[in-house]
């Protein structure tokens, strides 16, 4: 087994070898610009891009013409949110999202807020779910967009997007879903789930970085967007810029493989995730699994280890590539806003690890990861004044701390 063991597939995935093979000719012999209409180089590139578009469309139950290529999910989210806001401003100025969305949704929303739009940031319950009755009550005749992610990137909680889509359709408001973490991992169907806009990213599903898609519904209703990038009028005028042909080809192949292998991959990953969880919980019964075990991405496990701090834990398990639910490592020293939104106590929010498994994860790697984490938690607890106090029977919530 090679170390470090990569268990951070929610951050990014390696390219599948088949994806790379499919991409390679488009860097060299078949280097044409997909917008060149006057020669075979352009025609070849265009045909490859359109085939790829078809594979992505198939992954989410869309028509190929409803897929726009972007540079990734961040751009897709920005285009969906700002593009809808600008297009439908006459109809209304209200948008709805949730506190646990990715920054690539929250920050465009905040920018719109600064420009005079009204944004409702719905709270979530302890498992990361929005209250659908609360969502229904929040939608007014001024609401132009509801944006709720398909799967949360930190805790893996799945929103019931079919129900949310049906509700939005009934209320006559558009529904955008950031499916960056869900696409290729769980079945999605924009028709059955009444999704109007959906963001996807290639590098989360074994494709290359720097390419993604935005699905934009063509009928019932036809969704229109104001382009956020002006230029040559590519992608039906909604996203100008020479197409990333190699990237699109890679994303298409990645989507094709996900569609073909999901039925086998999902149960395999779920079994590995459950094995990891069981092994950790058996050794550390007071560890806390965050999110909703009943509605969670099959490959993601977010666990809090009370009385040890997340960054030191990750530092200790250097043979594992995992990420901290705490954002300490990104220098903000704040615990994760997602975990805090769940109402987790700060010491739990400061002590979490996100394990995300993937296509190339093995049982041996999972066992190794569990054993290393357990050993390190035990070592750090021996060093932890909080653990010592708890052993002495002290209630930590009653201690007067000297906050700094």
């Amino acid at each position, binding site marked *: 087994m090679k170390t470090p063991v990569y268990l951070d597939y929610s951050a990014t995935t390696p390219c599948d070898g088949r994806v790379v093979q499919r991409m390679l000719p488009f860097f060299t012999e078949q280097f044409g610009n997909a917008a060149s209409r006057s020669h075979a180089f352009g025609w070849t590139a265009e045909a490859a891009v359109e085939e790829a578009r078809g594979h992505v469309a198939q992954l989410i139950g869309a028509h190929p013409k409803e897929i726009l290529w972007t540079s990734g999910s961040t751009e897709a989210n920005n285009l969906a949110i700002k593009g809808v806001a600008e297009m439908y401003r006459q109809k209304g100025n209200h948008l709805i999202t949730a506190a646990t969305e990715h920054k690539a949704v929250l920050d465009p929303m905040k920018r719109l807020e600064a420009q005079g739009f009204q944004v409702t940031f719905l709270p979530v319950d302890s498992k990361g779910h929005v209250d659908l009755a609360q969502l229904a009550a929040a939608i007014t005749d001024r609401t132009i967009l509801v944006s709720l992610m398909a799967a949360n990137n930190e805790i893996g909680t799945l929103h019931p997007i079919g129900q949310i889509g049906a509700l939005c359709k009934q209320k006559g408001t558009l529904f955008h879903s950031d499916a960056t973490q869900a696409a290729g991992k769980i079945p999605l169907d924009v028709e059955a789930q009444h999704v109007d806009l959906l963001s996807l990213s290639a590098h989360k599903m074994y494709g290359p970085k720097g390419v993604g898609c935005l699905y934009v519904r063509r009928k019932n209703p036809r969704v229109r967007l104001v382009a956020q990038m002006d230029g040559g009028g590519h992608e039906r005028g909604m996203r100008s810029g020479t197409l990333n042909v190699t990237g699109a080809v890679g994303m298409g192949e990645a989507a094709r493989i996900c569609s073909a292998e999901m039925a086998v991959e999902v149960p395999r990953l779920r079994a590995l995730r459950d094995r990891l969880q069981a092994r950790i919980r058996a050794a550390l019964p007071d560890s806390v699994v965050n999110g909703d075990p009943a509605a969670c991405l099959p490959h993601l496990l977010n666990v809090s280890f009370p009385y040890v*701090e997340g960054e030191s834990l990750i530092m200790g398990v250097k043979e594992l590539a995992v990420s901290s639910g705490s954002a*300490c490592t990104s*220098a903000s020293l704040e*615990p994760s806003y997602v975990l805090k939104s769940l109402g987790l*106590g700060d010491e739990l929010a400061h002590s979490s690890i996100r394990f995300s498994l993937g296509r190339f994860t093995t049982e041996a790697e999972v066992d190794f990861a569990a054993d290393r984490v357990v050993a390190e938690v035990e070592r750090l607890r021996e060093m932890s004044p*909080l653990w010592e106090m708890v052993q002495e029977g002290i209630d930590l919530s009653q201690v007067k701390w000297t906050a*700094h």
Partner: protein
Amino acid sequence: MAYSDKVLDHYQHPRNVGSLDKNAPDVGTGVVGAPECGDVMKLQIKVDDQGRIVDAKFKTYGCGSAIASSSLATEWLKGTHVDAAEQIKNTQIVEELSLPPVKIHCSVLAEDAIKAAIEDWRKKRAAVAGSPPNPEQQP
């Protein structure tokens, strides 16, 4: 984030982890920080009659830099007179461990913990000196 070799060394081989009897009259205990801030340090010193620190122990809940700062503090405290220990500045810890700006608060916490432990010991000593002789302590 890249950690300095010294931080890694203290993190992997922390010095003087443990606890002293917090009720002993010659032991001073300082607990600083808060779980919601992501670090809590407990630093203890055992001081002889001349005011010399003969033992120091720590336990820390916090990042690697917080663990290293408190581990280093116990190393420096052992064998030092409390008056000198009180002069230890967080900047010396920053320098010794090459802490980046975002981790300076770990060194501040260590300085606070040293001061809190010394203050606790001084209070205990004042209480002992000020109270009537304890018959059990008579030879």
